[in-house]
């Protein structure tokens, strides 16, 4: 599904040039759950942003669904993103002024789905995330775990081919964090491809494979037993 080859990314300031990704290559197959680990500054979030088409790479190749997307224009990326990728963030990134329902619905609005169909899909995903009873609440009225469920619901509502999770349990206590990880595992079991960036060994083990990074390079790649 994803194949990156010699992917590079630099950050330059007036005086320094920092290498964030140094010719990194790997492949993710459909249905995989890959955990990316590494210390702060190792380049894992940068990698996730490039995989999510939120950021450009400075070199290398990125094939998404058999298509080279490295030189895509902003409009093409937005199109690809909204139809194929769901995001889950550490800080949930829900819009405070919108209700649970509206936050999830937003993902469908940009794909141009009709209102009646939207309602059906949103209700279905909220039901699945067991957050239906909170559909009219605003994010600030929810617990962290509930907020992350909403964020996952938003990521799923478009039936994306790929879910990218950036430290999804980082802002949660361990019990709630485990719940979210169970949720992601379940989604993976149902066929979703997931790439998750995490600091936590515990969380990383929910995946099928761990890619470890250091200073912008892939250090090791372990296949886990549950794959």
């Amino acid at each position: 599904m994803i194949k990156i080859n010699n992917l590079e990314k630099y950050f330059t300031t007036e005086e320094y040039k920092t290498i964030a990704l140094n010719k990194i290559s790997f492949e993710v197959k459909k249905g995989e759950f890959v955990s990316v680990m590494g210390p702060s500054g190792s380049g894992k979030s940068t990698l996730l942003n490039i995989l999510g088409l939120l950021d450009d790479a400075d070199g290398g190749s990125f094939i998404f669904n058999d298509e080279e997307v490295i030189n895509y224009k902003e409009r093409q990326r937005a199109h690809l993103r909204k139809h194929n990728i769901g995001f889950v963030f550490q800080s949930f990134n829900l819009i405070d002024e919108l209700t649970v329902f509206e936050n999830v619905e937003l993902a469908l609005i940009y794909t141009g789905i009709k209102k009646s169909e939207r309602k059906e899909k949103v209700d279905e995903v909220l039901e699945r995330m067991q957050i239906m009873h909170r559909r009219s609440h605003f994010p600030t009225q929810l617990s962290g775990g509930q907020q992350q469920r909403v964020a996952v619901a938003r990521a799923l509502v478009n039936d994306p081919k790929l879910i990218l999770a950036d430290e999804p349990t980082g802002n949660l206590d361990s019990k709630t964090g485990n719940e979210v990880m169970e949720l992601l595992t379940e989604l993976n079991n149902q066929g979703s491809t997931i790439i998750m960036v995490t600091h936590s060994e515990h969380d990383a083990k929910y995946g099928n494979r761990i890619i470890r990074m250091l200073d912008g390079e892939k250090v090791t790649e372990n296949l886990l037993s549950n794959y």
Partner: protein
Amino acid sequence: MIKNYFKLTWRNIKANKVLSFLNILGLTSGLFCFLLIYLWISSENSVNKYHTNIDDLYSVYLTSSDGPGFGYGTPSLLYKELKEKVPEIEGVVAMSNNNRNYTFSNNKKVLKQKGKHVSEDYFNMFSFNILEGNASNALRNPNDIAISKDMAELFFDNVKSAIGQTLTFENSKALKITMVFELGSKNTTENSDFYLSFDSLFAESPWMTDWKNLGTYTFVQLTKGADEKQVEQKLKTFLKDYESVSLLAIELQPYGDSYLYADLESGSGKIEYVRLFGIIAFLIMLIASINFMNLASAGSIKRAKEIGVRKVLGAGKGSLVGQFLGEAILLSLSSLFFALIFIALVLPVFNQITDKNIDLENLPISTWIMVLLITLFTGILSGSYPAFLLSSFKVTDIFKKKIETSSRTKWIRKALVVFQFTISVVFISCMLIISKQIDYVQNKDIGFERENLLAVTLSEDLQKNYNAFKTGALQISGVNSVTKTSHILLGDYGTSPEVIWNGKSDDDGSLFTGMVGSIDFIKTYGAKLLMGRDLIHNNPDNIEYLINESAMKQMKMENPLGQTISFWGNSGTIVGVVKDFHFSSLKESIFPLVIRSEGYVEFNTAFIKYNTDNVQQTLASIESLHATLNPAFPFEYKFMDSEYNKLYKSESTFYKLSTFFSILAILISCLGLFGLVMFTAEQRTKEIGMRKVVGASVFAITSLITRDFIKLILLGIAIGIPIAWYFMNKWLTNYEYRIDMPWWVFVTTGSLIISIALVTVSFESIKIALVNPIKSLKND
């Protein structure tokens, strides 16, 4: 999607109450000013333009081929000649320039009404609502009169019953009402209650047959399709065969322009104010829009997450720009709603100040469309910068909280604040300078004593009984002296080349203002004699002349006393030279003036100099004297000092309005400043917390935040002052007599703006400085 935007806009307004309040208040104030000025400008632009034939109507004016002289005054016989000799002219109207009050009476009432004499084409050329009678033959006979609906209702039960009735005019002749009209529009300079036949005036005024007397206004209507330029060319030399006025050229001005471009010599007039207010309106709108831009972009940090999420979910730049523009337009529309409420509230006062009849209920649909377009434009203008700024944020930057480090954004925001304060400085300094100039002209020694000087209208009986009136008035204890003249000594009179003196060359076409005066002229007016004496004779066989200094120079006389001159053919002796005094606005230089002691011009005004003891009693005594000598006419009088102030009505109005708009401009700028400080403080919460932890005092923190803003304001002041200086210097040149540029105005403006800004900035920064540092740090 749109619904989603609406919902979000509304919730954003609710979530950020202070910001939304500042935004809506700023936009409301901006729109309020802009629309008010827009309504005024469109009203000014449409004055007198309601006439059906407006495209073919022209005011005639004359220019003198040598020496000064531009004026609407034309020979009274001109209209007949033009109609006869110029085929491209379809209609011509002669109109007397004596738009003054006359006494009318019937068996029920005696009332003063204002009106003038017009020739027969008048009602065909200009548009009136004719309620009764027939426009084409309304003033056919010398004793016919056309009266307004209001006048008809004053004297009669209703409009219908007025037709065919008679009214006594000036207690002397009976006039038959042949027509009742209503003005074609309220937006007109025409304010006559009645019109009389021009022929009747002709019959009573032998001097009108004199081509040299330029006392009549002439208007023409060109035939459809006539080439205006060609006709004008033809008219330029039309008078060359009329001996006494052969040096004058006839010019045409579109009638619709006469109101705004009445200053013929410079080709401007009230249009200057229209342009000036247009600029003011635009600048205020700009200040308000900048406020919005600044507040929205400063507040963008709050919206960043939303933008990030939308982008992640696939929102393109276009849809985000659309969203933020939509929000700005929505806010502008709600501000329009509030602005209209405020306009409706202040309109009565505004109409009173500006002498207008603007009525929101009767605005044409085109004006409403414009109002809506202006609002949309404001929304787009205000929303454009934040929209493009916000939508250009990179998602990765947003989630790394890096967006506020953009130095370009900060730079633009600072530049906008500087711009706002520059405009405020310009406004306030200009307002102060204008007020000083108005103050100066209103208090200037104009060469005669206008204080405690009463102008009393001399109706016909009183003209005959003038000597008795004067004798009676002088017996009243508060009265010092009495004289009479042909004109009230303020305003614009006709000019004439017809002054003859020894040694005048044949090609000398210099123009003079002439008036007729009487015994005690100098004493009553308080004018200063340079040489000679006051008028002491009122004897047609022994005509005396007073001339002013300018006339003396014009005639190149070194010792004018005793010399013989003649004006309109009445020759007499110069007995005195008066020091130049202003008999029109201080915008004009003093014109050569000759004052003759006798003549066939009627004396229509008596002047009474009184002292300040018990003015009410003095006035009452004069009124009762008037009633005894002139029982058929109401007592009509004016105070010369207030008449003088009326000369500066435009300036005065302009001053009042610009004061109001300047205050609003500074208020709007401060709203923006307040919002910016709020956001800066919010952004620097962590820094402030850290500083407090290491021991910074409240004062140190406050001055830290305040300092940055004050620098911007100082820059605004530094840029604004030279701009204000330049424009005011230019404006003052409109006045022949003006103040020196007062430097203290700039000091005052600067201090005022800094004080207001300091209060605004300190208010918020002290609040931030007082916050417990633990809280500031925890929030980060």
